[in-house]
């Protein structure tokens, strides 16, 4: 089936991609600016077509734990929410990471802290990649910058989630969630059959046949010796992700005197600022992160060897900027520019910041 060209919101793309990628279950709770994900799923009634289960839960805590219970049986299960809701899901996320349960969580970020605003933001970076829950764990975190990527990353998420038995977070924001763009759909990936489920999730709790011991899905280990060994195993997994699964995009960085580092909506705005700078004869490049974890440390270090300064652009007080300084070993000046409260910066503001903070 040829890929179809469609026009839709980012949130809708997430929902349609979930259905198309053979998701078994979605459990969620309404919160602006991402309620369209569940609304679309309810309109599409996938339980009548692909057999996908969709349920509105009583809270985000119930939702993330439904993801846990469903995914622990070896099924492809997802949820979505926005910043305050994702905060409520943090306990569930560290349990999912601790029990090594593959699943998909989408955060369409909005301004914080607290109830904050419903406008877009990127101030959940720390929460996403530095562990919003307790314990040493990581979520494989993808940052879409377009409606097409909102769609595609759902498919990619399932591959990573089951390859590494790890939750995957798609970290988007209200702008991408709400704006409409064209996208090319992908062929339907059928939901797994019983045999496929047993092959892809032999660890799952789908009922103990006589020929194996009973499976246990837990994150509890009271024996410290064993828990340390388990933690080392998790760290090895994350190291492998860092080695093999980093994704980024470097535009005009080879000859760049100055580099803008950004992801998601900010990277779209920065692309325009880069073009404006190039028109003024300034050799500016854009390094766009696609995976926030694993962070492209080596790649950014390499690309920034020749440049004289880096500006990070984030809709926050500056969180990723710290990781950029670490990655570039403070060899060059790294400054942050961002707006708060849901205000989206303009390309002009980005260019001014680059000139005032970095170039001067």
């Amino acid at each position, binding site marked *: 089936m040829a890929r179809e060209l469609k026009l839709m919101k980012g949130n809708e793309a997430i929902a349609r991609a979930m259905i198309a990628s053979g998701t078994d279950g979605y459990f969620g709770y309404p919160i602006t600016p991402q309620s369209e994900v569940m609304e679309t799923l309810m309109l599409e009634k996938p339980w009548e077509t692909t057999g996908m289960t969709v*349920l509105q839960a*009583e809270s985000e805590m119930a939702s993330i734990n439904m993801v846990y219970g469903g995914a*622990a049986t070896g099924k492809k299960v997802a949820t979505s929410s926005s910043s305050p809701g994702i905060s409520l899901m943090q306990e569930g996320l560290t349990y999912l990471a601790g029990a090594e349960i593959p699943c998909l969580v989408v955060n369409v970020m909005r301004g914080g802290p607290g109830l904050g605003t419903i406008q877009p933001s990127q101030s959940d970076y720390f929460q996403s990649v530095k562990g919003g829950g307790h314990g040493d764990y990581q979520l494989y975190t993808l940052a879409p910058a377009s409606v097409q990527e909102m769609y595609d990353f759902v498919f990619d998420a399932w591959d990573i989630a089951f390859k590494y038995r790890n939750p995957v977070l798609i970290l988007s924001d209200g702008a991408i969630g709400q704006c409409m763009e064209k996208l090319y759909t992908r062929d339907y990936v059928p939901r797994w059959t019983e045999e496929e489920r047993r092959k892809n999730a032999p660890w799952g709790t789908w009922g*103990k046949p006589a020929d194996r011991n009973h499976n246990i899905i837990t994150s509890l280990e009271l024996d410290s010796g064993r828990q340390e060994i388990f933690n080392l195993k998790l760290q090895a997994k994350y190291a492998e992700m860092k080695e093999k699964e980093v994704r980024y995009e470097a535009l005009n960085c080879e000859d760049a005197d100055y580099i803008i580092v950004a992801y998601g909506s900010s990277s779209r705005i920065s692309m325009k600022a880069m073009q404006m700078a190039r028109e003024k004869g300034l050799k500016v490049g854009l390094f766009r992160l696609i995976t926030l974890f694993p962070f492209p440390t080596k790649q950014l270090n390499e690309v920034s060897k020749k440049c004289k300064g880096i500006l990070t652009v984030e809709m926050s007080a500056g969180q990723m900027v710290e990781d950029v300084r670490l990655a570039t070993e403070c060899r060059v000046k790294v400054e942050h520019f961002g707006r708060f409260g849901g205000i989206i910066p303009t390309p002009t503001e980005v260019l001014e910041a680059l000139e005032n903070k970095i170039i001067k």
Partner: protein
Amino acid sequence: MTTADIIKPENLVYTKTKVLTDAVMHYCPGCGHGTAHRIIAEVIEEMGIQDKTIGIAPVGCSVLAYNYFDVDFQEAAHGRAPALATAAKRLNPDRFVFTYQGDGDLAAIGTAETIHACNRGENITMIFINNGIYGMTGGQMAPTTLVGMKSATTPYGRNVALNGYPLRITELIATLPGTRFVTRQSVHTPAAVRKAKTAIRKAFENQKDNKGLSFVEIVSSCNSGWKMTPVQANHWMEENMFPNYPIGDIKVDGKIVEGVDINRLVVDHPLTVVK
């Protein structure tokens, strides 16, 4: 006929079910958890559904239940078992899903999950062990701790002005249209164990026939938390827990049982001191 002649395989009438593992249970001597585990495992064995059952353990004394059932098990965060069960069942409708929770797990932090799973009428079996105390963490007050009952966090006895009323969660969920079968049992005497096992069997049969949510509360003792011997604890339970948490079926086939005072939510039977 000497004893040795009797003890022969062909004369065996009762032994531990194979659906329980060989692990020695960590529960305190005389704790109702062990008995409850055993009769659930016996029902699973008798129905021949060991290969189709998914259990969900709580956080609390029975957090390690998955080591004792030779059944696929998931460990839920504190209070969230009904949510896990909702998804596990909806995504695997041909499997038998049961949750196993204590009073703190089900009626304190997990109240919302309990009420909403019941209200949705999920086709699962919920087992609720009510011993009026937080055992695992060392005997603190639970939602079902009785008025006047001492605990690590009510050292002078539970006081309504300070700690509110004991929660009769089972009567509460019995009023929800989603619940099909709601009963309260105990496991401290042979007769009580038989009735409790019958109730659990009925709950699993309801699940097999897609009749909606079955909820089995088991009032149990906690001799460590209550600071009594196991036998004393059982007597104290009969004199104090049962009047406030009456034993018997509360709702059958979706209808409240005749004579059950469903509205009596106030727990008001004064405590006695065990002899």
